[in-house]
Each structure stands twice: as C-alpha cells, then as structure tokens.
C-alpha cells in the first residue's frame, strides 16, 4: 500500500491486493454454511420480523422454566410439584414441531428460491458438505429448545433443593433421560423438517405441509382406531406422527399414558414408538439425501 503525505493527512492507495493469507478446507466451508444457517433461523442480522417466530418460541420454551426457578427461589415449597420433566418435555414437543416446521424450510427453501445455489456450488462445496452443514444448523437450534431448557430446569431444581448434593444423587438419572429424550426429539424433528423442506422451494408450503401431515396423521389415527373395527387396528397408533415423541418420552420417564387414549389402549411401550421414530427418520433422511444430491445450481 503506497501512501502520499498531504497537508490535510495521508492518502492511501487502496489498490487491489491478492490474498496471501491462510486458506482452510472443508471444515471451514461446512462451519460457514452451518453458522449462516443458525443466524438465518434465529433472524440474526436480519429485520425484526424474521426474529418474531424463533425468539417467540424460545421465550415460550425458556420462560416457564425460568419463571419456575424464580418461584422456587422465592417460594420453595409452594412450587414443589409445579411440573415434571416428562410434562415439560411434552409441552416442548409441541414447540419443537412448530420450531422445526419453520426453521427447516428457512434453511433450505430460500437458497433454491433465490437461486443462491448458483453461487454456493461454484465454490469447492459438495452436496454432502451442504447437507451436513444444514443438518448441523438445524440440530443446533432445535437442541436449543429440546435439551437446554430442561437442563436449566434440572440445574434450577438442584440448586434450589434443600440439599443440592442429595437432589443430584437421587435424580441424576433424570439428567440422562433429559439428554436422551432431548436428543431423540432433536434428531426426529430436525430430519423430518428438513426432508419436508427439501420437497419445495416455498417456505410457507413446507411449513404448512409438515404441520398438516403431523396433525392430520394424529387425527386420522384416532379416527381409525376409535371408529373402525378391523384386525390389528392397534397398529394405527404408529400412524400418529405427532404422538410418537410424547409417548416415547412418557415411557422413558415412567409416566403412564392417559386413560382411554389411543396410546393407552393400543398397548405398545416406549421402545415400539422409538423404533417407529427411527423408521420415520430413516425414510426422511433417505428422501432428504436424495433431494439434496439432485440439487442443480
């Protein structure tokens, strides 16, 4: 950079210079796409409208936990039985569906709709890098709702207990269950949401489609189970996509199914619902991979 002294200061020649610094490999490219995806989903560096849904859902996920801990601090005994981890996870499962149904399409659809792939794939980025990065981004933000609030709740319960050490000793297995349940729900909702998003370049269509399939499948399963009579009708319990995570969580935390519900009468236990979720995830992952590998800039 040359410089010329002038009475009022220094004039710098900002001519073009070749880049001679370090260059990183595949890891950097995947991280860059993943980080941009997280920012996009959370509406960071974007206008306020894009922040409303993700931050609203985050407030709904964290708000009760923080409020509960606050109440425990102020009125320890009054809030003793406010809600269990299983109850909270069932609430979170609803939020997760909404969150994943909006975040998944946000990650995949605009790149195709705005033709940004024409630029991304002209860098040394493979379809696999792209898929891996988008999946990592969605897993990270979904885990933010599926795991972190419950871990915070567990820590809050521990720290506000009469004896933190005793609480921790007696309930440590709950922490393991929180991590297992949160991870299963994170993977289930993330991959299914991305698979749905890979089918269209319109965010609204993907979101509405995913919610429609989840809620519609639940309604269909209940209608079939309670109104039709046929052999093996209990198997329709697995048709209810929105019911699978909650039933697995109930089983994991030892909570019984509500009396008279489809889950109660179908007679399956948690592992059955876990297998059903694994099948759904496998199908969704295959669909997602097929769609992303076929992407053309």
């Amino acid at each position, binding site marked *: 950079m040359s410089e010329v002294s002038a009475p009022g200061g220094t004039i710098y020649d*900002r*001519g*073009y*210079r*070749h*880049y001679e*610094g*370090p*260059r*990183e*490999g595949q890891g*950097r*490219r995947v991280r*860059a*796409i993943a980080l*941009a995806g997280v920012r996009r989903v959370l509406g960071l*560096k*974007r*206008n306020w409208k*894009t922040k409303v849904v993700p931050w609203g859902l985050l407030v709904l996920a964290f708000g009760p936990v923080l409020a509960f801990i606050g109440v425990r601090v102020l009125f320890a005994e009054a809030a003793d039985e406010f809600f269990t981890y299983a109850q909270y996870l069932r609430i979170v499962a609803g939020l997760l569906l909404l969150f994943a149904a909006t975040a998944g399409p946000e990650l995949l659809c*605009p*790149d195709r709709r*705005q*033709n*940004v792939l*024409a*630029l*991304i*794939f*002209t*860098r*040394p*980025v*493979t379809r696999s890098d792209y898929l891996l990065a988008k999946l990592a981004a969605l897993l990270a933000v979904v885990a933010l709702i599926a795991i972190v609030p419950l871990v915070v709740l567990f820590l809050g319960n521990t720290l506000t207990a009469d004896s933190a050490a005793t609480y921790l000793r007696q309930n440590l297995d709950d922490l393991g269950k929180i991590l297992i349940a949160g991870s299963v729900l994170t993977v289930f909702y993330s991959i299914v949401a991305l698979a749905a998003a890979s089918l269209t370049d319109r965010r609204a269509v993907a979101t509405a489609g995913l919610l429609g399939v989840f809620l519609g499948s639940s309604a269909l399963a209940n209608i079939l189970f309670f109104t039709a009579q046929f052999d093996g009708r209990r198997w329709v319990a697995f048709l209810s996509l929105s019911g699978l995570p909650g039933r697995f969580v109930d089983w994991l935390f030892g909570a019984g199914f509500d009396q008279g519900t489809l889950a109660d009468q179908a007679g399956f236990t948690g592992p059955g619902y876990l297998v059903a979720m694994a099948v759904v995830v496998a199908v969704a992952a295959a669909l997602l991979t097929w769609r992303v590998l076929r992407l*053309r*800039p």
Partner: protein
Amino acid sequence: MLVAQVEDLSKRYGTVQALDRVDVEIAQGCTGLVGSNGAGKSTLIKLLLGLLVPDQGRASVLGHDVAVDPLAVRSQVGYLPEGACLPGDVTAADFVAFMAQLGGLPPRPARERAAEVCYQVGLEEERYRAVGGFSTGMQQRVKLAVALVHDPSLLLLDEPTDGMDPQGREDMLDLIARIRGELGIDVLVSTHLLGDVERVCDRVVMVHGGHVLAQGSIAEVAGTTEPGFGIQLGNNGPEVLAALAAAGLEARPSGNDLLVKGASDLIRDVAAERGWPLRRMVPRAPSLEETFLRLQAAAGGVPPAEPASPAPAPEAAWGVRR
C-alpha cells in the same frame, strides 16, 4: 499459455444438443464467449466449472482436469452467474464475506477481504444494506465482488451486463477491463452483446447451435488483419462480384456496400476496365457483429440481417464497430 482447454466436448439436454464435439482454447487475457441465446455459452461455462457432466470429451481449467478434480477448479475460479442469485435479506458485506469463507478464507480475513473487494467494485456504504433493495447494476457489482473475493486466477462472467442501464453497463465493462488490466486476472466473458466483447476482450470464441464458429484474436476473427474496403461500384450486382473475383479480390455484400479484401489499385483497375462508376471506396473491415452474423448464416443459423449503411466516410471507418 492456456487457462482452459476443451476437447471434443458434448452435452445434450434431452433432445437438445447444447454442445456438439467442441474444441475451445482459452488463452491468458480477456476472452469473449459470444453467441445467441441458447447457443451453448452457459452450458460451456458450467462444464468448465464441473457443475455439469459432459456426455463426451474433456475439459481442463488452470491445469486441472475438471472431471477429476472439480473442487480444485472451483477454488481457483470466480463465477458470476446469469440472472438473480443473491439472497435479498442479507447485506452485501455479509454475503460476500460468507462466500469468501466458502472459498476457504478464515472468518476475519474473509470480512476484511469482503470490505476491500466491495470497495474495489464500487460498493462503498451500500455494502451494509440488504441486497434485495439494490438496483440490477448494484446486484451485478455484488456478484462480481463474490466472484473476486477469494482471489481467483480465472473469472467466468456469464452475461455480466445483462439488464443494466447504459451507464451501469459502461461501469461494468470498465470494471472488467480493470480486472484484467490492473489485477492480472484472466477473464472469460460470456455475452450475446458483441460490442461488449470488442470493448474489453482481446480474444473471442463464437458459438452457435452447440458448435464453435470461430475462435482467435478479435482481429483474426473479424478479418481486420488484412486490408479491406467498402465500395459502391456500378450496381454492386453479381457481375461486379464476378469481375472483382476475376481480378483476385475477395468480395461480398455488406449492407449497401461490397466489402472487398485486397489492394485498392486492383479495385480501381476493375472499375476502369469495365467503365463502372466507383461512387464510394472507404477503408473498412467487417465488425465482429458482421462476422458473427455471416458465420452464423453459413452454419445454417439465422440469416444475417442487412446492416445499416455505414455512415458516409468518417475518416477511415477502418475497424469501426457498430
């Protein structure tokens, strides 16, 4: 030295033969890739980037076989695609920095380099605004910044002046000239605007219907390496053409004139022998556009439109581009 080479390359989309066994050599410097819409220009560029798989033939870019190592090619090539391809709700600075990271730059150098390249292409404070609010010209600048930010050795620009107003087009052509002249980056410009090629390129590849019509320096392709004249001799009819041919002159109609290659003395002698009035004789060479239309017509494409009559004799219409 060649920066890209294509041998016997073919690509078919269903029933459409986009490229048919083409051989192209792209030398250092600025090369124009010209042809009508659908001629196969964008297909050729995508094959050079490894975004498409050829049906046959091979391509190499900067010494890398595209089929074997497309990622090495893409890490050294910058690409400005045709049409809209920018995210509307991201600032130009953020997006260019993101694309720098995809080129392998760490985050901090990526941000610094993005700011520097945005400045170089004429995006100053605007780079902090969302790209969706940019004019077409500004969006083309952002795309150019994206193509440059990872410091490529070769730029592939697909219709860089498409949709731009005259001033924006001039600015973009100036930028392209600077990229080659000052930055030393080799450039391949795909366009259907031959005037753009004449303005910034030193070499040209003409494609039509999936075939290469001509390639070489602009002077060679346009035929401006040999002397020529635009003449109006007699009625400029077939007998005039025959007489000129008999005198060893290569002549063909070009608008209201006959375009003749050869010495002026021979033209004068034909006129004197036949007693035909020589009403007009100006030094003139075919423009790139005339050459392209003639080659296209010879290849069975669109017949050449009759170019407008050249303005009467500005001093030496030699090489004047319309």
